[in-house]
């Protein structure tokens, strides 16, 4: 199946969790948040939330700014 991860189409295996996508992105341990299809996925639900086919995932962190 395919999903959009931070604007790029990625081939993911069926049942891939949000936690697995975060790891795939090489995101830092702390200071990261995830939105799936336009809604925040709380960290506590990363392991149990699976990315659906055609899902849109955004993995964000804090950078210098403002």
């Amino acid at each position, binding site marked *: 199946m395919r999903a959009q991860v*931070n*604007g*790029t189409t990625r081939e993911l295996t069926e049942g891939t969790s949000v936690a697995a996508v975060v790891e795939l*992105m*090489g*995101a*830092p341990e*702390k*200071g*990261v*948040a*995830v*939105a799936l299809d*336009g*809604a*925040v996925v*709380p*960290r506590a639900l990363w392991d149990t939330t699976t990315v659906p086919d055609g899902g849109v995932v*955004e*993995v*964000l*962190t*804090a*950078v*210098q*700014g*403002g």
Partner: protein
Amino acid sequence: MDDPLIIAGREFRSRLVTGTGGAANLSVLERALVASGTELTTVAMRRVDAAGQTGVLELLRRLGIDVLPNTAGCRTSAEAVLTAQLAREALETNWVKLEVVHDEETLLPDPVELLDAAERLVLDGFVVLPYTNDDPVLARKLEDVGCATVMPLGSPIGTGLGIRNPHNIELITSRASVPVVLDAGIGTASDAALAMELGCSAVLLATAVTRAQDPERMAAAMRCAVEGGRLARLAGRIPQRFWAQASSPGL
């Protein structure tokens, strides 16, 4: 003199809020932050793979500076609300500097989207610090929906044009019951001092320090300017006169 800045019940000794954008590297940023004396500093939220620079959170934690996530880059209320919710999740703070700009050329706030986002975020439990136009009516409306501060611009972001409409800033500070933070447009120390003299409770700046030739020294200048302007405001300036008035006794 004990004169803390209080925003939403949190006390700050420093009245200078800084941004972290524009610094050449983290070491320059660190020296500037320390010299500024700031206790509250903004960060932006970006995609992990496009982040480029990392380590800013660790730096702020090490320096004991509170993080204020912003919604920079958002053009609509919906985008800003989602970005604020992501920042709350990532950084474990319900404080947000709300920015909803209309276009890239001016980076001026979109008042309609801004007010809508402010209202939604307040209802969602956020402490909202909105970056707004120097419009006394909009400032009042932002306060009415429950914002913790109002943060009018002096001039557009990054221009260093100073405070273009001091009278509007004074209109805002004269009737606000939340702290007014002059946000954007500061070019040099006198601009920061003027903001405080006009009754602002604090100044938020980034570019003026991070892109100065010597960021650390400019940060120290801003710290002094904010303190000086605050003292002058509290001291009460003399009225302006048309004709001279001798300060020495007559012969």
